[in-house]
């Protein structure tokens, strides 16, 4: 990892963290000045939030928190252009990660590569090239995805590895305008 990237990620995490706190009604769980274990921060935050939630009975996205020192980082840019940088474990797929952190990504088929609702756009061509190529089934579903790009993937098929540390993906924006204009045709 290059130093500027680490710095950038730290800032992003802090920013996200601040946002989380602003929504919280519980007392801050940690008081350290430096986020030495951003992973623990992030997951503690989420679990605290989840325990307060009454709307969702069923939890999606089963991911284990990464072991200290083995964190990989992935950043999601959501539909409102907000960034969420998360510390994750190797092997986790992007759909599970997003759902475990309450990001707005659906996985209508439960991550079985049978729909295109977990479509993500890899922001960096180089990162995209590091991933194993999508198989036919994934490509077939991507063909149906809204806003398909040259670096589109299905989140359920992208598993985090060391090579993908620092990955940035964007969630495609909704297609409301498209629908409205289609309608007039």
């Amino acid at each position, binding site marked *: 990892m290059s130093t500027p990237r680490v710095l950038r990620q730290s800032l992003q995490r802090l920013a996200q963290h601040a946002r989380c706190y602003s929504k919280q009604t519980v007392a801050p769980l940690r008081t350290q000045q430096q986020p030495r274990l951003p992973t623990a921060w992030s997951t503690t935050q989420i679990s605290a939030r989840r325990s307060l939630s009454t709307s969702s009975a069923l939890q999606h996205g089963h991911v284990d928190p990464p072991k200290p020192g083995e964190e990989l980082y992935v950043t999601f840019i959501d539909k409102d252009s907000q960034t969420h940088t998360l510390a994750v474990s190797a092997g986790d797929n992007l759909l599970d990660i997003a759902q475990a952190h309450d990001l707005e990504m659906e996985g209508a088929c439960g991550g079985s590569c049978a729909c295109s609702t977990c479509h993500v756009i890899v922001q960096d061509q180089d990162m995209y090239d590091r991933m194993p190529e999508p198989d036919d089934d994934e490509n077939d579903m991507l063909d149906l995805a809204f806003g398909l790009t040259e670096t589109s993937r299905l989140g359920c098929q992208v598993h985090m590895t060391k090579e993908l540390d620092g990955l940035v993906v964007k969630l495609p924006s909704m297609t*409301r305008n498209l629908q*409205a204009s289609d309608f007039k045709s």
Partner: protein
Amino acid sequence: MAFVARVKPRAIGLRGRWPSQVQAPRRMYSQHPAHHTTPEHPLRVAVIGSGPAGFYTTYKLMAKIQGTKVDMYESLPVPFGLVRFGVAPDHPEVKNCQEKFEEVASSPDFNFIGNVSVGTKSDHPDGLTLPLASLFRHYNAIIFAYGAAQDRKLGIPGEDQLKGVYSAREFVGWYNGLPEHANLNPDLTQGDEAVVIGQGNVALDVARMLLEDVDVLRKTDIAAHALETLSQSRVKRVHVVGRRGPMQAAFTIKEVRELMKLSDVSFHPVDTSLLPTDLKSLPRAPRRLMEMLAKGTTATSQSPSETSKSWSLDFCLTPKAFSPSSSSPESTQLASTTFERTTLSPSPFDPNAYALPTGETLTLPSSIAFRSIGYKSTPLPEFSDINIPFDERRGIISNDGHGRVQHEERTRGAEMSHGSFPGLYCAGWVKTGPTGVIASTMENAFATADAIIEDWVSRTPFLNVDRKVHGWEGVRSEVLRSGDEKRVVDWQGWRRIDEAERQRGKERGSSREKFTRTGEMLNVLG
């Protein structure tokens, strides 16, 4: 038995020119600035239909406006619409979206009101029927998400007279255990050749069901009667016929690939003159699809002479007539289907090309034929009473593209007036027309939910905002007769039916064996 409408539209001021005036009876809704949801006045919504559109709209609404109360009306005792009765049994992964729906239904703010048909008479004798008008006084918003329950017809000789001509929609309903078509009992023993007219994914589903190894289907939740009939099928050769060419076809690549992969089933080469020569220059999705069709013609390891079953995509043919055998013209059994060849204008490679008749005909032997040229939504009978416009040409409820039900009328000054009905929305196929996959239905349902949310927070008029409404509680006390109540199936009731079906499935070694009669479903509940 279904009971009659006790609440007439007139009684609640819904008759006549209400929508065009945009001045509804004051007691129904007003500009009263009381739209903030409070614990005493939550947003109360009725959703008509429990398919993916209804559930995804509900999910988004309940997530974004805390405290929203949703009552979902379903004419059958069981939920999920086309996820249960449309998605092919060998696509169980597509049905995983039910997990999300179950999560939605587990909310204390959600009510499933099964076995209750709204607006149209229940199509089964055990079902209850509610007039649409009876919902208007008890909700802030009504979402029409009742889908497309009809299909388009060809309108050619023999279609309605001959045995062996089926609607793909009915066939799909039959193999998926839809009570309405449980008695279809298609005869697959009259001959080897089948014709499917239409080239969408429903057509390919039908072809796959006819060609797939029955032992593969046995493990799925396919209806037991369908398993029995398919195991006796004589069909060996399936033609999937379209008016236009491969570049204009509606099927998607996954469904074609599945057919290409079936064991002991081969694919007859397509007419390569209809494939663009320079495939590399096509956009990604058509390029991959055309490459697959081209490859199918050159690299199929099994040739039709080596496999017991085969299929083909037959392009540029428009159906003209279904006929009985020429040796016995009095017979009522289909023996052949006659088509007229077409040519594509301006070019076979133009995705928007249309088919022109050539005068040349072709007759395909066919002992069974399926029309699969699209589903169709219909208006609820009460729509005309309360002036909800239905676009007959497109088969949708007129809406603004975001799901707000719209009216369009001339005012006194002869100008066109457009506007939305307060509190009326639509989602799913009755909003968009019958196309698309789960992903598109989901996005589209979310768009309807977003429109409702936007209207609610911007204090756009809704129904009954100046008084407290009670949703199903209110409807029930107003229109249910004693004895009706116990026929309403709630979510707990569905869970018991669900459990009974899974148990039956275990005995057969499959995930589920559906009840195919509403009476059987209700018997589970005692």
